[in-house]
């Protein structure tokens, strides 16, 4: 049996980069990242809603990819770079957020941080997405208020502005 196998324990020290800062914390290895963020670190921009990965309200970036923090366990974050909506907003209003503001891509706002995260992951990987790609990329983010009209407009505007920075 490999040495690492013997490392198992309930008291576990997670090392990762969180919103750009190297972070270490004691936690249980199977603890949900969502609980770590919201309850342990009080980063409440990441929202709790379905807790089975079906709504996207808890979306975070892990190594730049959108991932449901309710499905991610602490040990799966080891060595990873995690960005929450607080991290994305650290430098002020991001152009994606600006597009959501201008187009009315939100109403109650509860799905919005997760939605912003997914749009960021999409546009960072694919600056000129077509409608099929937008629909696929955001299919895991449920918005109950807008009917997605404002979200379609916001994503298209954000992509357009990336192509033609004003």
């Amino acid at each position: 049996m490999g040495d690492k196998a013997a490392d198992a324990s309930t008291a576990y020290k997670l090392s990762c980069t969180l919103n750009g800062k190297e972070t270490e914390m004691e936690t249980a290895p199977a603890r949900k990242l969502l609980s770590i963020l919201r309850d342990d670190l009080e980063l409440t921009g990441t929202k709790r809603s379905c807790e089975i990965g079906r709504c996207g309200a808890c979306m975070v970036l892990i190594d730049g990819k959108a991932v449901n923090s309710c499905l991610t366990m602490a040990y799966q974050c080891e060595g990873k770079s995690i960005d929450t909506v607080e991290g994305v907003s650290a430098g002020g209003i991001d152009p994606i957020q600006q597009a959501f503001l201008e187009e009315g891509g939100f109403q109650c706002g509860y799905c919005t941080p997760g939605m912003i995260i997914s749009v960021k992951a999409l546009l960072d990987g694919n600056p000129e997405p077509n409608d099929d790609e937008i629909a696929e990329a955001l299919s895991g983010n449920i918005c109950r208020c807008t009917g997605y009209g404002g979200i379609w407009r916001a994503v298209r505007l954000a992509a357009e502005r990336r192509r033609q920075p004003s």
Partner: protein
Amino acid sequence: MLLNREGSGSRWRIRPDGPSKVTGQLSYLTDMTAEGMLYGLVLRSEHPHARILSIDTDAAKQASGVRAVLTYLDVPGLNAFGIAHPDQPVLCEDRVRYVGDAVATVAAETLEEAEYALMLIKVEYEPLPVLDDAEAALAPEAVKLHEKGNLLHHAGYSKGDLAEGFAGCVHVVEETYYTPRQMHTYMETEGGLFVPGEDGRLTVYAPTQHGFMDRMQLSRILDLPQQQIRIVSSPIGGSFGGKDELNVQPYGALLALRTGLPVKFHNSRWESVRAGLKRHPMKITMKTGTNAEGKLIAHQVRIIADTGPYSTLGAEVLNFAVEHVIGPYVYEHLDINGYSAFTNNGMSGEFRGFGGNQAIFALEGQLDRLAELHGMDSWSFRKLNMRRTGDTGPFNQPIAQTDGAEQVWSVVAGSELWKEKDKEQTSNQPPWIKTGVGAAFVMHGAGLGVGIPDPAGGRLQLAKDGKIEAVFGYEEFGQGLIASLELMLIEQFGFAASDLRIVIGDTDIVPDSGSTTASRATAMMWKSLERMRVPFEEAIIARATVAAGLAVDQLQLGEGGVRRKGSEELIISYEQLAQLEGEPVKSETSFHFPTSSVDRIGAHFMYTYSAVAVKIELNTLTGRVNVLKQLHAVAAGPVVNPQGFLGQIEGGSSMALGFTLTEDAVMDKGYYMTRNLDTYLVPTIADQRGDVEVVAIEQLPEGDTYGPRGIGEVGSVTLAPAIASAIRAASGKWVTKLPVQPSFLQEQPAFLQKAVD
């Protein structure tokens, strides 16, 4: 006017609450924490219907970290709640009537300890027969769920002589329609923070649509004067009617007062599904007849609504449905009977559309069928039977008159989308893809209606720091109320956004403006500002004249302060004004939502008219329907806030899309089968790829004093029958049950049928 960003110019604004929402900085009430807080949970019934033989909380009370375990014995006041009629137990004593019924509540130092404590509570049940069908519940032999029986409410309306009416008809259509148990699916589940004060007061931070109603209900439960309770209720992560009734508040309040510590609640999704409200499933049977000219003569309707175990607003929803199964058409003979039945299914209650969604699906289905029997264009058939300007409302009651019916009808009649109806199905489609165009029409009532307290009002004041404060008792659950209020203050008074402070959602500060429900808040704010404008302007200018030594008629309100008329020169800033001595500068108003002068509970006075046309695509291989285009024509008076208006119609129609095609909180013998969002399917962005055009008709008749009509619900009520109509056009099949069953629309490929021939 086609509503969009381009056409709205400077009226299309970034919402004041936007930046904090898109950055995640906004703290929702379920995000709040407090030093030393406890976590609260509720133990709910294992059975849809059972007698409680015993409740043993000893082990739970002794468990680690547990600070309180409460049962019915610990409710100091009325052990019941319900907006209209309090009959839902806070904590059940001897009987449970649905799987969401609360039996005990626990507060512990950690969530995990609270969960563990729930497991240690021993409840002995004796299961009772389960009433899982509303009609069966109304049978005489059914077990009684309440002392008065299983009929929560009967609502009827009749005129003329039905038998005589049908005798003179050339066509009669009889059909039964079924609608689903739709879930609100607000993204933020119920919860909040409950903080006891040293002075014996309790502060409740929990979403609701009517803070003062919560305060009154909690006061009854806690046996505490209302002044001892403060409700802070916004912001809210979606509600759609679902958070108007109490949910976790009684438990948080009881636990906080018992332990003297702050208590946090935040429902899991399953807890929310299990305990929360849904839209009433209805079975609506209609028999409708026409004469040779195609005029509606007789209309008979029977509505059976499954209201679940307790009242909440079940009776009011039924009243609304009864009004809206009559709707925007004129008949000679009517006989409407609605029955709302108690069952052991989940709780039904208030939900955007408020019984209209079900009623309009059925009524518009009848209109389409009759038009076809007459060989008439379905839209012309509606025009023939429509109420005209000057006509009374569905209950023959006086209503606020508009030309809305005619206006929205014309928009659809003249639209490109409606003209596609008569085009040949395009030949470049594979043969198994069929398209169809359909349309539907509605007049949707706003406000609570005759006989129900429906207060409105608000306050404007110049605050000490020079901000103009607009203080209203309404709630922001996403609809954009704050944005609409800001825009009205800018446009009607000349203030700058930076002059303003909008104060809502705190019972210690705001006046009781009534509930934020029934598409009423924007209309009531508009009316309130109209009533306060002159006195408030006068009060500010009076103070300014003293300071500036200028006459009243030389001054006017403007951005940043009072300005000289004509030159716009700033005479004195609001901040400077606020520092001057004098009578407080404020204006208050309170009034009642306008109602009809008729003795008919629930009858409406103000209506919004809407017509919706859709184009759908049906894949007959799978039976699945895709909505390609939507056109919504809405006549609701002046558009207060274009972005908000568009968002309400787009969002409402998305909910209606789910209602029509995918959503149903399926129950089996009183148990929910759809416990989370893996089986309860609301539309995703991939389901919403079709264009949605919204045309707003703003004209009101000369002399109208009521201003903007409600638009919060109307987007959600008309899409289902329009889709059903388009399905008929595409497939030749009449849909009677929602959500539409793909198996019903599926066909074998034509190339096989040829082989069979």
